[in-house]
């Protein structure tokens, strides 16, 4: 199956045999393409001792650390083909990743994300609450991961409202009016985990204590950006869900895992609490001692694979996160593909991620 054919498939529809054949072809094709088109990537693969003429399975192909995108300008298309440069949200003084997109890669990111999210949300677009401030998406030339995430998800929103103003204050009345207007409809909520807790949940809690509540029992919340800051406040994923439910009746909450270096291929948490890889991506846990593959259930450093990147060599990356692949094709939720959990950043690694930047300043 070609990549373009796969783009017509349902995102959780391939079993492991079919998916492996697809990934073997596509990843080899991408590796060859980037080897040919990016001098830096070619130099890196030569240094790693990789023989570009070898025919090997996708999980044996070289992977490079995500950190390289902070140190090098890695691109596989000429300057004039670049339509968008995405950056990770780093604090001042901290290096940021730079990801160069041509129009096809940018479009495929959007398409893949739409397919994945629709699987959880249904095909209909719905009224959407963005739990962030409007200013975060203003500068379109230099996307931060936060802005990119919001814009990426905004296509699922029919009517949109920002829950916070640029002073990060909750627009309670605005939200209340918005919910009145769309009473009875499914509402999509999107935001970054820490921001939701700090600026949404805590403010709603205060209002609730004063006797004012928002009713979000029709809401579906999708959130990402990592748990680091919340775990330091001793808030577990389960508690996050329960407390939100108590304060506004929210029933459906999906965490997601993803990174600016592989935008589009997000891993969404299913009803069983597992993150899922779609047919467009794969995840492999590797042992730190020798980078061999972990067994299912064994914690390791996560390698992420995306079939999308054609304009930059980000198709096979070693993250700085630890996690556990729990199984493949047999999650009780019914979705095919690998499912896994993320336990957090490797100890002592540089601070990375979306909402963590804001958290670091907080």
């Amino acid at each position, binding site marked *: 199956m070609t990549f373009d054919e796969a783009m017509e498939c349902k995102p959780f529809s391939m079993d492991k045999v079919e998916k492996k054949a697809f990934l073997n072809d596509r990843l080899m094709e991408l590796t060859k393409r980037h080897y040919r088109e990016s*001098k*830096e990537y070619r*130099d*890196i*693969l*030569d*240094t*790693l*001792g990789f023989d570009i003429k070898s025919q090997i399975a996708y999980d044996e192909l070289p992977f*490079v*650390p995500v*950190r*390289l995108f902070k*140190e*090098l300008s890695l691109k596989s298309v000429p300057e004039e083909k670049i339509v968008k440069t995405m950056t990770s949200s780093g604090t001042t003084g901290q290096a940021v990743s730079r990801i160069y997109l041509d129009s096809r890669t940018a479009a495929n990111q959007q398409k893949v994300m739409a397919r994945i999210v629709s699987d959880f949300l249904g095909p209909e677009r719905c009224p959407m609450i963005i739990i962030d401030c409007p200013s975060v998406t203003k500068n379109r030339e230099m996307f931060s991961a936060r802005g990119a995430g919001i814009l990426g998800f905004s296509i699922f929103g029919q009517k949109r409202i920002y829950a916070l103003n640029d002073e990060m204050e909750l627009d309670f009345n605005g939200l209340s009016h918005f919910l009145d207007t769309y009473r009875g409809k499914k509402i999509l909520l999107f935001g970054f985990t820490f921001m939701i807790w700090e600026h949404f949940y805590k403010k709603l809690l205060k209002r609730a204590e004063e006797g004012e509540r928002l009713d979000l029992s029709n809401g579906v919340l999708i959130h990402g950006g990592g748990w680091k800051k919340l775990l330091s406040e001793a808030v577990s994923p389960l508690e996050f869900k329960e407390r939100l439910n108590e304060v506004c009746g929210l029933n459906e909450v999906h965490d997601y895992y993803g990174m600016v270096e592989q935008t589009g291929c997000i891993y969404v948490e299913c009803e069983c609490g597992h993150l899922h890889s779609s047919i467009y991506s794969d995840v492999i846990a590797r042992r*730190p*001692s*020798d*980078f061999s593959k972990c067994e299912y259930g064994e914690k390791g*450093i996560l390698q992420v694979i995306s079939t999308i990147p054609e304009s930059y060599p980000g198709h096979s990356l*070693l993250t*700085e996160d*630890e996690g556990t692949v729990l199984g493949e094709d047999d999650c009780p939720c019914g979705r095919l593909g690998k499912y896994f959990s993320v336990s957090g950043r*490797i*100890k*002592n*690694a540089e601070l990375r991620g979306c909402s963590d930047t804001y958290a670091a300043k907080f």
Partner: protein
Amino acid sequence: MRQSFEKIKFLIGSAESLERMAEVPSKTPFDDEICEFLNSLSKALLTSPKNRMYPAVTAFGFFLRKGSIGLLKQRFLKAGEYRLGRGMSFHIAPSNVPVNFAYSLAAGLLAGNPNVVRVPSKEFPEIDLIAEAMRATLEAYEGLKNMISLVRYERDREINDDLSGLCANRIIWGGDSTIEEIRKSPLAPRAKEICFADRYSFAVIDTKAYLDMDPKRVAESFYNDTYLSDQNACSSPRVICWTGNEEAYAKKLFWDSLHEFLKQKFELQSVKAVDKLSSLCLVGASFPEAKPRFVAMQDNLITRVELKKLPMGLMQRLENSGFFFEYSFMDILELKTLCLDKRCQTIGYIGDKRMFMPLLASGIGGVDRIVPIGKTMDFDLYWDGYDLINELSRNISVS
């Protein structure tokens, strides 16, 4: 008493004694009582069974042996000079080498000074063991109690300001960023500063000499030079330069023997596996003209990168935890690129030390010491090109 001192944790000494340390009279270098004290400390360190698990602690004990101090006295005490310690010496020890603080203190004492030493804030058993032996030994040397203060505090500008204002010598270990940080605190006008900035080191192995040696013992020596301090000391070799016949065989023997040793002794942190891979990729992208090639071992303990050239700037980014460049040479002058930079500190070697003479004569900016592999961490009162006894004492001219 200074308020800042309340934030200090004292392993030896007290806020009261520190407050008065600047008034404690200096002694002459290699003062008899100080030499006796160090000798007693040596006995305490070498006889306690607890210390045997910590080679760095026993090595410090050996350094302080009567015979060893006697030799130092012969080498460093100059006839016809009347010297006295310059006064209170404030030492900031490096955070990555647990026992460096003790050598710095010994140098300060041997030069005749009262000393306050900031030990690493990270807890190391070596520090506790040495401090414990020192406390016990000091009981018999009442007159020296006011000359030693071992302190621990988190990064604190106020404490740095106070101690810098009091001291006559400031000794900063720990590299460029520490120096920059500590230099924000002004010294008194006549005070003097010795800084040990970021350095790098490399090693040279003549295969002929190596193949005559016991590979297991070489592996242990090399381990002590590198992995024992996570290859993060200035003196830890980063580049291994090979010369001589049967190179492929010698290399395999060397790295395989080291790997055997590491399997028992060294645990690689997860994050370092990623760091080393990142550095490997960055070297590939940054120095393509040197044709860097990764040499795969069975796991991530040793990361080897062979180079066809030694490019300038190779040492700008230092990786650690077992990350080695390898280079093969015919002519010793090929290594000049590594030695030009003032940051180049130590050459560890196996072979004939006379081979370095043409290199030293070629007009290099760096290289302060050339020592056998296994000895790169050994402390000497000559360090980074400084004669520490001379630097920390003053000469009174009498005519």
